[in-house]
């Protein structure tokens, strides 16, 4: 498939159509949607309606009573989620959210305005659950649930990355991520999902990680990483797997073990944890911090997440340390304790190096690696030589989930300022709680979805271009595995000459390990300048 060129994609028409909303249904144009979930994955997970189909098909092979299933599913969720019910009722359509969505900014498609994305669901809610909608239909903004409406749901709710930027600006705090999560649950009830989500979920259920790496392969990778660090520094670090009696269980997104540039972040973790003399272990059973179950349903999120506490209990650790990942931390911070807690077999986390009590994590007993390392740096426990990162002019991309679902803003910045001499912020409307999504989150990172991803990431890329032009920025640091997977491609496409790295890669570069030999290169094998 020929990929569209940047100068084609920048022809964005923001003028809304003349025909009134809702207008024609979704157009499944190649490059703008993801492949359907494969039957074998749905079967493995016990999800409804496994079959062979693709979104452009006229016949989606829905169950005969699909409408009843969806309406009933909606009824149940209106009784289970106050957020969902409230967000169906109180939107005043003020339009403040309209141009806050990166997909709207990148496509100009009015149904990508958060208000109208939610309206896709709200119109059906009104028709079946409100007196005015039942009686007045279109006049009250209600519409029947038809196959075309279902197809529209599929297209637009798999064109939302649950980044929650719109909610920052909403005067009622309406959170499109909540609406999208419910909409995806409804779509899943009749077997409408995408393979880039359900395959990792099926892999994770079986092997313990999204990539489907089996335990011996997992160990091999860690051994390889240890060898690589030994070659670079002359220091052999420890990286145990499934070791009972360790103090800490370390869980990272599995992309850190296999992806590029994620892998250099893994090297950074190993070096920091070695230098701090932390007694920790990896687990091959819980070898995934990320959680694509979140992009299917709360139930699957719970199922995959349960492995972390279960493994912490089996190994007898005291607490859990988590790697750099966005939605993983949405789950660990806001869901894990509720879904699979309370972890009363663990202890409130205490840094074995500084004695700092992480009281903000005393109940869930899970600490973010940036919190942990920032504490080390703040206490002067790590010797850092920022000059080793001097070939980089660095900017920082807040990932959506850690910024808006946690508030982890200063910890990574503290690390970057300590590990790099040249650090520059992007414009203030594009960072911290206003950060712009990479355009590939929430399971939308498939190659086939290329055009939508490039469009969705355009606002982020444009902000990177600004700091590149102003300060010569040539490296974007981030703390999210999906960012590390998608931003290199995005920045090549729109900007050029900007690499992507994890924060712990830069810390690893700058870290002076006790007794190390002079390093010939940085973690990427490239010469220091």
């Amino acid at each position: 498939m020929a990929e569209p060129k940047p100068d084609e994609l920048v022809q964005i028409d923001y003028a809304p159509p003349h025909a009134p909303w809702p207008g024609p249904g979704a157009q499944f144009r190649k490059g703008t949607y993801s492949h359907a979930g494969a039957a074998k994955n749905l079967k493995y997970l016990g999800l409804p309606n496994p079959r062979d189909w693709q979104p452009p098909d006229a016949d989606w092979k829905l169950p005969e009573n699909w409408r009843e299933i969806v309406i009933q599913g909606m009824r149940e969720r209106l009784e289970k989620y106050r957020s969902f019910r409230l967000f169906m009722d109180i939107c005043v359509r003020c339009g403040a959210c309209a141009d806050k969505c990166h997909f709207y900014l990148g496509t100009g498609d009015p149904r990508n305005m958060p208000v109208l994305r939610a309206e896709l669901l709200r119109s059906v809610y009104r028709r079946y659950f409100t007196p005015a909608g039942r009686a007045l239909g279109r006049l009250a903004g209600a519409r029947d649930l038809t196959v075309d409406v279902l197809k529209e749901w599929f297209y637009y709710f798999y064109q939302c990355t649950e980044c929650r930027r719109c909610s920052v600006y909403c005067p009622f705090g309406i959170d499109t991520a909540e609406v999208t999560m419910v909409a995806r649950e409804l779509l899943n009830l009749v077997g409408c999902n995408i393979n880039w989500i359900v395959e990792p979920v099926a892999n994770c259920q079986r092997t313990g990680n999204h990539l489907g790496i089996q335990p011996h392969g997992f160990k091999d990778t860690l051994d390889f990483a240890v060898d690589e660090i030994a070659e670079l520094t002359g220091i052999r670090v420890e990286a145990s797997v499934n070791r009972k009696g360790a103090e800490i269980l370390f869980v990272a997104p599995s992309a850190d073990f296999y992806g590029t540039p994620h892998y250099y972040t893994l090297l950074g973790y190993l070096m920091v944890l070695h230098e701090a003399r932390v007694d920790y272990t990896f687990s091959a059973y819980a070898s995934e911090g990320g959680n694509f179950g979140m992009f299917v349903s709360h139930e699957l999120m719970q199922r995959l997440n349960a492995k972390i506490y279960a493994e912490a209990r089996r190994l007898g650790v005291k607490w859990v340390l988590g790697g750099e990942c966005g939605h993983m931390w949405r789950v660990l911070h806001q869901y894990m304790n509720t879904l699979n807690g309370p972890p009363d077999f663990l202890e409130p986390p205490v840094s074995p190096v500084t004695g700092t009590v992480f009281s903000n994590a005393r109940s869930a007993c899970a600490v973010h690696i940036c919190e942990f390392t920032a504490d080390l740096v703040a206490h002067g426990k790590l010797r850092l030589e920022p000059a080793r990162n001097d070939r980089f002019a660095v900017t920082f991309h807040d990932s959506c989930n850690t910024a808006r679902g946690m508030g982890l803003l200063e910890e990574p910045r503290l690390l970057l300022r300590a590990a790099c001499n040249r650090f520059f912020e992007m414009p203030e409307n594009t960072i911290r709680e206003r950060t712009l999504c990479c355009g590939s989150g929430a399971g939308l990172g498939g190659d086939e979805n290329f055009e939508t991803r490039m469009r969705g990431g355009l606002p982020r890329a444009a902000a990177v271009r600004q700091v590149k032009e102003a300060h010569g920025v040539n490296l974007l640091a981030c703390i999210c595995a999906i960012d590390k997977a998608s931003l290199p491609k995005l920045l090549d496409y729109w900007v050029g000459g900007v690499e992507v790295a994890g924060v712990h890669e830069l810390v690893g570069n700058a870290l002076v390990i006790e007794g190390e030999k002079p390093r010939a290169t940085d973690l990427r094998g490239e010469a220091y300048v």
Partner: protein
Amino acid sequence: MVTAAIAYLAFAIFVAGTVWRVVAWARVPVPFPIALTCGQQKSLDGIRAAWLENPWTPAGAACRTALEALLFRSLFRNSRAQFLPGPRFIYRPALSLWAGALLFHVCLFWVWIGHLRFFVDPALLGPANRFVDAGLLAGLAFLFLRRVLDPRLRYLTLLSDYLPLALLATVASSGILMRWWFHTDAAAVKRFALGLATFHPIAPVGVGLLFYVHLFAASALVATIPFTKLAHIAGVFFSPTRNLPNRSRARRHVNPWLAPAQVHTYAEWEDEFRDRMRVAGLPLERQ
């Protein structure tokens, strides 16, 4: 007496509808602590946490909600994105909606408070002055015109969005006409209102047509509040992204309907991979 009956009916619908609406929201659980954080979390001692934008305590969250309800905090962040060649986006502060909305709501509230003088004897407060009346009309005109003039807003506006605006315009303009130009016998209105308030309704005497327009439109407005988007008046206090503290790792949030997870257990997992794990030298629970 029909007039009084309509007023009572509208009020009864409003009260019953509001109770129904609020109870409908309140009895649905908040299953997960989904605070939306707009500032630094509380973590390490050396890092200053944003107690209001990322509240750590319920009191902080209450302040955050109050700021949202009283001063429209989130609208104050509003910006307008502009796409330029480069490609490049600029985001300009766009405070007109915040200012217009605040003007409208403050003036409406003020005018409403001013109406209490009809229901209390002796009146404790005077009526709103003409600047407030003018502000109310200006706010309404702004809210209406932006829906008509801005193509994006025109597209996302539903027919049902114009209904409250039309009712409000009718109520406000008839009231203002009565107060400043076609004076109505305020004493007669007060006798009628006090009759309503003390449940000894009397027919209004000596009031003009404008009074009936005002009263009936206000009745219609009040009666529709619980059933339309006007329910946002109560809803803003219920929003879980704003009214929850962000301390889910420090204190467990309980979900009343959650069932235990159907985990793929460690034992099942080891059963599948035992041989390869043994070869790789990984520890096993069962040999």
